[in-house]
């Protein structure tokens, strides 16, 4: 009885010593290093894919990517809880964020297009019509040359980056009327495709045959038109970091901005490369031409 106790105790001490030794002498080259990126669900697929490729090239480094929304991303990076905050909008546009304390890295551009249910019978809208539709002044598709179907507005959730961009650049800053709200692009598209007379807006990567993509003022929502700003409804995808990010974070952001990622991954996933843009837009909406 006594003897077995002693053996047990010795065994425990041995295990403890071994663990301690292992911990202090663990290989510290790249082992289990990781950074966390949190925020925008629109940007999540790109960061995830880039993170996976980066991990494959750099053994032992992990990029954790989580959703949660642009607001979450910005508030988490502001509080220093994560290394990267993903956002669809400029930090300056978000209430409660001190943009001067963050560093902005624009990694991609996303175009946003209005989508309409096929039964509405509309393929082109002027910006004025779009504004009137979303502010509730036009309530039937008949009034803009479509069929006699009532208009059903489907908005994204309040505070969503896509909605902010749409209200700023499609509605010229007009606030949309109170209407149905959905919190994801996929759901918005499926509702538009199944609800007669529904109109909403999604990123280019969500456009498909199930919904009618309308042109605005005769301009088609294409990548080429976004590049030269003929199609005005687009926004940057931002990776926000603190003013002095650590080396790993810097390396990863450089990797995302590298031609390898921008040329292949970014376009594959339906984003537009920032390198391809012929114009630049500031947080206040000022457009400058890039040489």
């Amino acid at each position, binding site marked *: 009885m006594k003897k077995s106790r002693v053996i047990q105790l010795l065994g425990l001490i041995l295990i403890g010593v071994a663990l301690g030794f292992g911990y202090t002498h663990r290989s510290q080259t790249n082992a289990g290093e990781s950074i966390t990126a949190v925020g925008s669900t629109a940007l999540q697929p790109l960061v995830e894919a880039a993170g996976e490729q980066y991990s494959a090239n750099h053994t032992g480094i992990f990029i954790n990517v989580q*959703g*949660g*929304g*642009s*607001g*979450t991303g*910005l*508030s988490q990076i*502001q*509080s220093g809880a994560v290394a990267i905050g993903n956002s669809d909008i400029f930090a300056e546009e*978000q*209430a*409660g*964020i001190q943009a001067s304390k963050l560093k902005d890295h624009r990694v991609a551009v996303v175009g946003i297009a209005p989508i309409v249910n096929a039964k509405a019978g509309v393929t082109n809208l002027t910006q004025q019509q779009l504004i009137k539709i979303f502010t509730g002044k036009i309530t039937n598709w008949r009034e803009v040359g479509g069929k006699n179907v009532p208009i*059903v507005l489907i908005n994204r*959730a*309040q*505070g*969503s*980056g896509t909605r902010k961009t749409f209200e700023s650049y499609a509605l010229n800053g007009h*606030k949309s009327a*109170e*209407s*149905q*709200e*959905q*919190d994801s692009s996929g*759901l918005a598209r*499926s*509702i538009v495709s*199944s*609800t*007669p*007379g*529904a109109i909403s807006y999604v990123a280019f990567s969500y456009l498909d045959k199930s919904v009618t993509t309308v042109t605005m003022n005769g301009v088609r929502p294409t990548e080429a038109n976004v590049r030269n700003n003929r199609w005005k409804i687009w926004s940057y995808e931002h990776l926000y970091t603190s003013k002095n990010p650590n080396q790993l974070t810097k390396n990863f952001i450089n990797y995302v901005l590298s031609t390898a990622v921008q040329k292949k991954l970014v376009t594959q996933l339906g984003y537009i490369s920032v390198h391809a843009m012929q114009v630049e837009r500031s947080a206040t909406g000022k457009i400058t031409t890039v040489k």
Partner: protein
Amino acid sequence: MDKIRASLLKKSVASKIERRGKIISLSCLALIILVVFLIFYFVASRGLATFFQNHINLWSFLSGIQWNPGTLGTNGQPAVGALPMIVGSFLITICSALLATPFAIGTAVFMTEISPRRGARILRPVTELLVGIPSVVYGFIGLQVVVPFVRNTFGGSGYGILSGTFVLFVMILPTVTSMSADALNAVPRYYREASLALGATRWQTIYKVVLRAAIPGMLTAVVFGMARAFGEALAVQMVIGNATLLPHNLVSPASTLTSILTMGIGNTVMGSLQNNALWSLAMILLLMSLFFNLVIRYIGRKGKLNNER
């Protein structure tokens, strides 16, 4: 002699184990209580900040009908009127409870009184299976089946209180049914025997004796179902349309406290008014579930008194 004395004065192994067990279970309990208090404290501290830090009038919060915390409403104050959500939550809860109760009681009566053997073997497992289905599945079915059905039958876009009611009806039915069945089962056998001995038919026995005796238990079941309906977020969010408008009718898009909470929380920043306003909604939810709990306890206590008399 000394040996016996020593062994008597020393604590036995069994009593040590007992004390250890007591400490473990007590600390588990303390931990749970601590967690509950922390949750209450956290929700209250964030939720009350809307009123104390951002100086929103409590009454305008509860009775306002504009919800867009980032902007100013027509009265110059931030638009944080929660009435549309409160009305939506209550309407959907009450409607689904009203719809589910008759079905649940009917099923429960069949399960316990009319065909107890089949009830125990088939019906109960089936209803309990319904409890286990994740709410996103209910929401998806609601989106693909219920919404078009409502649109084609009742008009409107299909998104609204009515679709939410149908989805919640299926979701709370199993809870209410199985709890009602438990309540009916708990009615003493001699009630039924006495009633039959007096010459009552089976229907008379069920209607005049068993159901009456089981009223407190069945009320508890309904309130439980209402608590679940009130707190359900995902499935409702998918079919209700999430428009922060006062519902004009049952097929116009509306919203509930939970749906606005889940949609908004990712887009706001901790400590801002937008975020605090959402916590205030969470506080209302918490207070309501507390209220439901108290109602259940009250009914339970009253039911006991009635039976003892």
